[in-house]
């Protein structure tokens, strides 16, 4: 079994997605760049968001309340520190890795994070829940654990896939069986280590088992649905495929019908094209 505690200790900073990093650096080099313009670009990057939350919620700042979003974080940090965070990020990791254990390229995880965050906004509108920055952040960061496992899990991946194919396990159940914990738990442990707010930690931890969240928790089931819709679209899906459980109770709780999920996918397509325009990416 791999030594997860030891791996987690090594997780210090997460590398941002190169397209976001390049665009952010371009903006930072112009003297007249506004913070809003910068936020527009970096809000879609789970690594930069995680790094900002980590810094703001650290003991160094000693804040009374936790910081839940990039925008709140920037009030605490100020422009210069934000620039330090972004320019201090490294993208080297993207190119040094020979491949990835979960069959995912870093771009896949980035795409999946931003796609589910966009979908969470669409779902909020659909079910009449206020679109809070916390929901956006929790959805953006829900697969932090996958970012880590994708780099550290190699031969174990075969065993996980085998359990899914032959044993009728869902992917996260197979992860628990082989690794002793699933990617949701790994993500929550990182979020804890970095002193993220409780509601975000819980949504990360329970994003495949929303039924375990307290009844008044609206964030976790929204993160779950946003993730499931993203997976169904084949975005950011590696060797796990679609091997996750569809939980109709969550749909029923929000009064959603099967057609609503289709509606979400149609609206997502437009939203995603807009983000690609902002980052002027190819593909």
């Amino acid at each position, binding site marked *: 079994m791999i030594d997860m505690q030891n791996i987690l200790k090594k997780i210090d900073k997460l590398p941002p997605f190169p397209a976001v990093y390049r665009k952010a650096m371009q903006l930072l080099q112009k003297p007249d760049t506004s913070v809003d313009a910068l936020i527009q670009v970096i809000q879609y990057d789970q690594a930069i968001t995680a790094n900002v939350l980590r810094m703001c919620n650290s003991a160094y700042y000693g804040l009374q309340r936790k910081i839940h979003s990039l925008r709140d974080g920037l009030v605490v940090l100020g422009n210069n520190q934000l620039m330090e965070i972004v320019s201090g990020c490294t993208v080297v990791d993207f190119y040094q890795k020979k491949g990835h254990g979960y069959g995912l390229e870093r771009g896949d995880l980035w795409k999946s994070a931003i796609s589910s965050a966009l979908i969470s906004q669409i779902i909020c509108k659909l079910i009449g829940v206020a679109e809070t920055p916390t929901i956006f952040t929790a959805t953006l960061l829900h697969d932090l654990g996958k970012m880590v496992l994708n780099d550290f899990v190699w031969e174990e991946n075969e065993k996980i896939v085998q359990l899914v194919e032959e044993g009728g396990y869902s992917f996260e159940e197979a992860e628990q069986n082989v690794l002793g914990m699933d990617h949701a738990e790994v993500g929550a442990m990182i979020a804890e280590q970095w002193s993220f707010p409780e509601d975000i930690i819980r949504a990360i931890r329970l994003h495949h088992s929303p039924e375990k969240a307290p009844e008044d928790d609206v964030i976790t089931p929204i993160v779950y649905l946003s993730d499931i819709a993203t997976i169904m679209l084949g975005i950011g899906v590696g060797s796990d495929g*679609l091997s996750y459980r*569809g939980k109709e109770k969550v749909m029923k709780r929000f009064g959603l019908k099967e057609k609503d999920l289709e509606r979400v996918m*149609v609206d997502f397509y437009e939203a995603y094209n807009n983000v690609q325009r902002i980052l002027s990416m190819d593909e």
Partner: protein
Amino acid sequence: MKVSNDPDEVLVTYSLGSCIALAVYDPVVKVGGMIHYMLPDSNLDKQKAKERPFMFANTGIPVLFKSCFKLGAKKNRMIVRVAGGSQLMDQSEFFNIGKRNYAALRKLFWRNNVMIKGEDIGGNVNRTMSLNIKTGTVTLKISGRGEVVL
């Protein structure tokens, strides 16, 4: 959607999930085309279907065939291959878009008398499909599991 008669071209569509990719090929004139649609029925959003017909099976598939005919392909020679339509595990009707995507295609093909030569549908895997215009070979790459010729 892409159609081509350039023998050096390989058409690819990535990461299907519950979406479906349909590859058609006329081996005589070496014309091929591919569509990657997301949803079964354009009645969901007729306006969107006008802007993006390829999002839906019922509006996208006919355009794919017609575009190939324009390049000289003939319906009776068309070789048709289909992949995708994956499902979540123990999914209920709430999450069965993959299944409905496939049913929409079957219905359309049945009405128009189109035969499917090869298919890899359903299950929980994520597929990427490519069509080689020179040879008509359709290859599936299954995330984390390798490649197969369909």
